[in-house]
């Protein structure tokens, strides 16, 4: 049997005395597009950060392509797993090109600069993410959507099979939401990337993905297909509110709106 891209088993994490994640188990096959959903404070972001050791600690096991997370050096891990954090207001005094070049870190040695091979990878990543025109711009001057695409391009430049994304479309305007969703879907289908994306917006989350897991107060409460997730009783149980389902012509999944029908 082929190794799972990501295999999490009985993973628990406590921070500051509070249990953030409780006995989480799930696995992701290579080529999967997994959405991690759930209400605020469910532990989605924490879980994502535990998969590439941005957060450390916790009990249970996490395996990446069959190998235990602890066995990786941080550099080796970065060659297999890339990461796009939540869009925030941090100051980024670098140009898009400089920032993307940092994605090649796991392949560089101390005094070496960017080589021909790195340059090719960077160009390729910029093309695939459609950010060629932004390369000389400072990140501080980009819009949220543009910045998000640069972050995805930088993650691509890392050349990792697995991409972790935290709320990739949440703060973007409609056009950029569509563009980023399309980009991720394309990277998954044609680029062969295994994608794990955290989101709290079900409508945007479930288009493009082939699997979903849901967390609620640190526990895994659902693992299955998007269609199975979108059941009234199940969503009510997870989000503790009612939903209205609106059938969408040409789509297997309904559009959902929080709140009962008016």
């Amino acid at each position, binding site marked *: 049997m082929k190794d799972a891209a990501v295999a999490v088993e009985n993973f628990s994490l406590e921070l500051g005395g509070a249990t953030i994640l409780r006995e989480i188990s799930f696995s992701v096959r290579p080529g999967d597009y997994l959405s991690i959903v759930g209400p605020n404070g469910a532990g989605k972001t924490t879980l994502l950060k535990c998969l590439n050791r941005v957060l450390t600690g916790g009990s249970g096991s996490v395996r990446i392509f069959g190998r235990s997370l602890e066995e990786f050096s941080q550099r*080796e891990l970065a060659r297999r797993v890339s990461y796009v954090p939540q869009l925030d207001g941090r100051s980024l005094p670098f140009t898009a090109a400089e920032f993307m070049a940092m994605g090649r870190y796991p392949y560089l040695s101390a005094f070496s600069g960017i080589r021909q091979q790195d340059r090719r990878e960077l160009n390729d990543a910029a093309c695939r993410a459609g950010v060629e025109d932004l390369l000389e711009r400072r990140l501080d001057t980009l819009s949220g959507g543009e910045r998000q695409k640069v972050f995805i391009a930088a993650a691509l430049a890392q050349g990792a099979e697995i991409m*972790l994304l935290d709320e990739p479309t949440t703060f973007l305007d409609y056009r950029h939401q569509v563009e980023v969703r399309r980009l991720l879907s394309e990277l998954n289908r044609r680029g062969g990337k295994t994608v794990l994306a955290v989101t709290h917006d079900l409508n945007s989350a479930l288009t493009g993905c082939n699997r979903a897991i849901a967390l609620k107060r640190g526990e895994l409460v659902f693992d299955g297909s998007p269609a199975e997730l979108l059941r009234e009783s199940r969503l009510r149980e997870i989000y503790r509110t009612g939903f209205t389902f609106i059938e969408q012509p040409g789509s297997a999944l309904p559009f959902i709106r929080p709140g009962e029908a008016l």
Partner: protein
Amino acid sequence: MGGRGAAFWTVILASLAVTLLAPLAGPQAIGLPALLHPGASGVEGEIFWRIRVPRVCTSFLAGSSLAAGGLAFQALFRNPLATPFTLGVASGASLGASLYVGLGLGFTLLGFSGETAASFAGAMLAVGFVYSLSRLKSGFTTGGMLLAGVAVSFFFSSLILLIQYMSDFTKSFNILRRLIGGIQVVSFGPALNLLPFALVGSVVLVSLAHELNLLSVGEDIATSRGVDVRRVRKVVFGVVSLMVAAVVSICGPIGFVGMMAPHMARMMVGQDHRRLAPAAIFFGGGFLTLCDTLARTMIAPVEIPVGVITSLLGGPFFLWLLLGGQGGRIS
């Protein structure tokens, strides 16, 4: 890119030029013969080779070390105000040195003067404190850390005052003199003492340029790109403490160089630490040399301690950064 490359070489060359010309400045004019014959006797030669050149070497190395340390901390804490001085490293080193003088100790450790060793111990104490604070509580903000640094500085200053109060007049004066940062050297000894720290420290920090770039974006990004953040942090803390402690043990606490020099260098050559680190190191050396040259020539024959000058420049600079001056963002 071309513009930045030119700026980089301008910074390096200008810093070197200032440093090379500095020994010529002073009340005593130096004639060509004295310059060309280092060993020859004569007042000019003596002043030039025995006093001014060692002093300029010391100030260059001290300035470089302070700038390198400041730059590394600024990247690590993602804040232009976070330097070894604002985080209490210098006051720790001063405390160590004061204790050494106050207790009338006299020993050498591994070839370094006891004062250097005591300064280093004090610096490590301060760093250890700030470091454990930053680990103790996740989400401890840089702002909080800076305030902790202020608290540490006040606390250590009080201890220094206590030591001074308990000491006899001579020791007390000795301590006071070293609390006002100044470069009073009359041999190559201090420069040679500084050299290994400045050189090794600078090479280590320049070799961490990629890591410093990533850390200045954020620890999460740095980790996800493959930086072993814990290891880098330890190395930076250790190396910077050594460098700053070495400077403090020889020159006393010379404030604000570690904040101003990297920031000015950043404004000229940009954020990329592969260029910025060497630029800041050279610029820091040239900058402190310039300040020290002013200190000994402005109202010659009286000398102003260079620490007074850097602090007079640094105070307003700090406020300018705090008010959101160019390039920096205080979070």
